[in-house]
């Protein structure tokens, strides 16, 4: 039982929070596009571009806040490009999403080479990272303090955004319109609401949150940029979106599950379980949950994509 105590302890919870947040931020961004009826697999790329520009902004202005702003703007510009191609020019959203991801990877490498004359990574004392937030009085709680104090600011922002999005989609007119645009675009058009405009708005929100995710990765979690540092987190978010249908509370649940399995995998490795086995844990969890949740409750956009690929059979 001592072994279990070594794995399941308070620091596992803190680690879960750390590993959850980057996926949560970008998945909440993806909730906007999913609700608006756009299947956005370009999240990974939006996050990566933002991580790069967050570092650039932080160095240029000498301010972490400006870095976060630069990351958000970069995310929103990338999302605008995505929306331009998908909404205005009606290009296939999967193809455009893939293109965004490839563009992001190549562009950040090329820009790094052009601006910094280097490849691989940007590490510098000139990058101003986000400072950790120490909740007053937390230290009195000893060990427990590490699950809510000492994180960088965007960790708190990520969790606060969950209720904000619940209210936004459930209680505001714009949130309702975005949902209508995604679920019943014909109804929206009949009411005189421009679906295209709402999809642009949703894409901008998505870009802004993907920007926060990228900035968190390069200025909060750690303070550097490296090639392809988003490392599949945007794709994890897409998986979460498929089984959550963009519902913020389910997004939170899914991201916590991934974060937890990731944090758990890290700990299992130190107990002589082969690394290859341990490293599959988060992906096995992903696949299991996709099977369990996704099939019946697929959002309309995913149903349509699947039905195009595989014509409906039976009576």
């Amino acid at each position, binding site marked *: 039982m001592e072994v279990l105590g070594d794995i399941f302890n308070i620091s596992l919870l803190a680690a879960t929070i750390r590993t959850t947040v980057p996926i949560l931020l970008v998945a909440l961004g993806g909730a906007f596009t999913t609700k608006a009826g756009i299947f956005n697999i370009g999240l990974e790329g939006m996050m990566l571009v933002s991580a790069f520009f967050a570092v650039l902004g932080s*160095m240029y202005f000498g301010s972490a806040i400006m870095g976060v702003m630069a990351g958000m703007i970069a995310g929103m510009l990338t999302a605008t490009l995505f929306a331009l191609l998908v909404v205005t020019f009606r290009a296939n959203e999967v193809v455009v999403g893939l293109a965004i991801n490839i563009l992001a990877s190549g562009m950040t490498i090329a820009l790094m*080479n052009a*601006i910094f004359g280097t490849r691989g990574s940007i590490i510098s004392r000139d990058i101003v990272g986000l400072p950790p937030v120490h909740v007053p009085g937390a230290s009195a709680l000893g060990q427990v303090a590490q699950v809510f104090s000492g994180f960088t600011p965007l960790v708190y922002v990520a969790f606060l955004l969950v209720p904000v999005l619940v209210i936004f989609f459930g209680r505001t007119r714009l949130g309702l319109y975005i949902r209508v645009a995604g679920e019943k675009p014909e109804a929206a058009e009949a009411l005189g609401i421009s679906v295209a405009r709402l999809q642009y708005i949703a894409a901008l929100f998505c870009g802004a949150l993907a920007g926060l995710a990228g900035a968190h990765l390069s200025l909060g979690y*750690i303070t550097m940029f*490296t090639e392809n540092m988003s490392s599949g987190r945007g794709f994890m978010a897409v998986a979460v979106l498929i089984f959550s249908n963009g519902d913020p509370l389910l997004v939170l649940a899914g991201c916590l599950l991934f974060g937890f399995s990731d944090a758990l995998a890290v700990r299992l490795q*130190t107990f002589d379980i082969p690394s290859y086995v341990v490293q599959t844990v988060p992906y096995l969890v992903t696949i299991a949950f996709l099977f369990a949740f996704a099939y019946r409750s697929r959002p309309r956009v995913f149903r349509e994509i699947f039905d195009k690929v595989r014509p409906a059979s039976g009576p």
Partner: protein
Amino acid sequence: MIRRRHLGPLLGSLATAALLTPLQAGAQSADVAAISGYFAQGFGLAIVEGLNQAEADFDVGVLLVDTGNRALDYEEQFINVAQDDEFDLVFVMGWELVNALEEAHSAYPDQQFVFIDGVLESDDMTYVDFAENEGSFLAGAFAAMMTSQEGVDGINSDNVVGFVGGRDIPVIRNFLVGYEQGVAYIDPDARVASVFAGTFDDPARGSELAMSLYGQGADIVYNAAGPTGEGVLQASGISGNYSIGVDIDQCDVAPGNVMASMLKRVDTAVYDLVGAQASGEGVRTGAYDFNVAAGGVELLLCPDVMSSIPQEVQDRLEQIRQDIASGAIVVDSVL
């Protein structure tokens, strides 16, 4: 906005990048070329330094071919370099170039290629092979000596040290084997907690792995994980523990918390081989073993933490270095 000046030196480095554009090789005693996508990055920079030094000292012509990251035309770049039989030696660095290298080697069997940092299948190529196990032995011995120190901030009473590998592949295992042996040489009861990130490109994951090792009582973590490892080094700065860098001087990633760096002296290696070619001695095929004895690997103690490293630790480390060089200590290898 004084801070805006930060971009000044950055843009200035563009000029440095321009120096890397191909130079036309003349009729010197030897002409060498180097092909890599990494001339602008730590390990590749050291190659450029070694070549520049050789160019200055031996009257050789040097051509640098930067492949960038365009995977499509690697082979064409090899052919361009090899087809005119213009270069005595062609250095190649980067595992993504191996396929193109092997094709060029079979198409131009007379061209002497030198592959840096690894040994491939072919017997008639030259390899620069660093003894990462020996360097890692030094890192392990150092970590084991430091973890038992008392009165140093960030060093706890547990005799546990950590290791973060990139992918679980033989060459990274070779780092781990040397490291574990080095730790056991100092203290057979000390424990090495080792983990693998599964990727070389995810510093956030490296940071997380290091945090979990620190949480388990490790106070010094050695990394062999590329950019993932840079996250390990940063984590040591955040948590106030210690880390050991790899390949190049990484002391600056988290000043005061990176205790040492296990260096692969690729600049020395390249310089030596060009020197051998220029002097007429020539460069043979097969692997050149750049081990501790040859000065190919070494442990650099970071200046920022020198004051926390007791003299007897430094002396013992030097003794171990000499013992490895003389063969009195034989370091295991998994390769």
